[in-house]
């Protein structure tokens, strides 16, 4: 009981100091840096280029945000396990990754408005016996998905008779599993699949034209950073109006152009 009381007292204190201090934007301005958590395991959104530099669609958008704020950017590089704790614990101001704003997740973090739409797609090995989404529905088909990703849920819905295998460690491992024959079909975000399959010789995979779902992608911040959330939404409005968002997505997501430079 005493511990609980102490705790509540501590929280009240923390609340007081939060109320007394200025908003997150003021804090960022004063600090002179925007701290952004990224997951560097998902081309084309976020990756480490050949020269060891951090880059990708989300990374460049975050850099643009910092530029518009007039502060420098500090990337905090986490793997998936560390991404959410980094945001919740206040180590990072915001989080850019190819994340779907599900309603369950939005109970814990504040998502911006979607900046693009994508969807889960099915892919198979090009010379294999699984040629269509229909083929993958056969009983016992091994389907590779990413643990906790929306593709995992979509696959469970679309392939109720299949054997769903959830991997950790990033989309490229799904391609590797399918390429190696550990799985027959893979389900993941279409932009990720397209971006990541370029690491293989052309024509290694068949990417099905039909989508399992349509999903928005959004950035995230905390609910106690309403000012930052408002600013981020305005930022997304502005960059989509002046075409900078489209330019980013055309370069990174809708084509293979980035492969030449990174």
């Amino acid at each position: 009981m005493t511990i609980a009381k102490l705790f509540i007292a501590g929280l009240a204190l923390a609340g007081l100091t939060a109320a007394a201090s200025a908003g997150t934007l003021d804090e960022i301005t004063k600090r002179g840096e925007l701290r952004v958590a990224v997951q560097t395991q998902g081309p084309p959104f976020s990756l480490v280029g050949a020269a060891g530099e951090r880059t990708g669609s989300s990374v460049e958008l975050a850099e643009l945000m910092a530029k518009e704020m007039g502060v420098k950017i500090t990337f905090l590089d986490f793997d998936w396990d560390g991404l959410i704790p980094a945001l919740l614990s206040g180590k990072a101001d915001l989080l850019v990754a190819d994340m779907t704003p599900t309603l369950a997740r939005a109970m814990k973090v504040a998502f911006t408005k979607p900046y693009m739409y994508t969807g889960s797609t099915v892919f198979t090995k090009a010379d294999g016996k699984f040629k269509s989404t229909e083929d993958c529905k056969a009983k016992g088909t091994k389907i590779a998905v990413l643990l906790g990703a929306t593709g995992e849920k979509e696959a469970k819905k679309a392939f109720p008779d299949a054997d769903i295998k959830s991997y950790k460690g990033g989309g490229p491992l799904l391609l590797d599993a399918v390429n190696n024959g550990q799985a027959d079909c893979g389900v993941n975000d279409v932009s990720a699949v397209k971006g990541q399959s370029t690491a293989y010789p052309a024509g290694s995979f068949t990417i099905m034209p039909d989508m399992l779902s349509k999903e928005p992608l959004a950035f995230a911040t905390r609910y106690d950073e309403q000012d930052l959330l408002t600013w981020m939404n305005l930022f997304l409005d502005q960059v989509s109006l002046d075409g900078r968002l489209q330019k980013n997505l055309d370069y990174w997501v809708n084509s293979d152009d980035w492969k030449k430079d990174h």
Partner: protein
Amino acid sequence: MLENFSFRTIVEYLPLFGQGLVTTVWLSVLAFAGALAVGIVLAAMNQQRGRLFRIPAKAYIDAVRATPLLAQLYFLYFGLPRLGIILPELVVGILALSLNSGAYVAEIIRAGILSIPHGQVEAGVASGMTYVQRMRLVILPQAFKVTIPPLLGQAIVLVKDSALLSLIAVAELTRAGQLLASDRFMPAEGFITIAAFYLLLYYGLKGLAALSGRWLGLAGAQT
């Protein structure tokens, strides 16, 4: 993260944690049995005078001890299919854990055998015992007592190492925590709960070792 710690959500996910716990337990039991088998074979090879057996055993043990389990797991998981061997994830996982822990078990057995006073062996030889008899009647029973605590230590390491199998799509305990973290964005709830379950397994194993120590008449068995 702590101020909003949600016990309710943990309870909601409890069946999932339960399933994960069960998987972790039985795959660890199988993997440890495998590790004992691998360890005994390696230790026996290591005791031979001929280099033919000793050198490969030593090389294997060193290679396993000097590289991370993650690298070994991938080596098996991505390497075997290239040889045309495609095994279910669970089998690869248990195999990797057995082969990894086996190297450590071999070292533990070797240390156990070394701990037996010289005179005992000589007495065995003097009373006309064969190698097998000496091993079975004199050395192994004593070595067994000395090896119980470090074997327990290795079992604990194995149980915790099995968390790595979540990387190759095995739905064990750690995975349940990660699911809570990625579905509901509740990492604190997920990770603290799995820690509690692992601690439970740890105390279970410790109790088991104390029990077996008493059973073997090992007064003052310290774990």
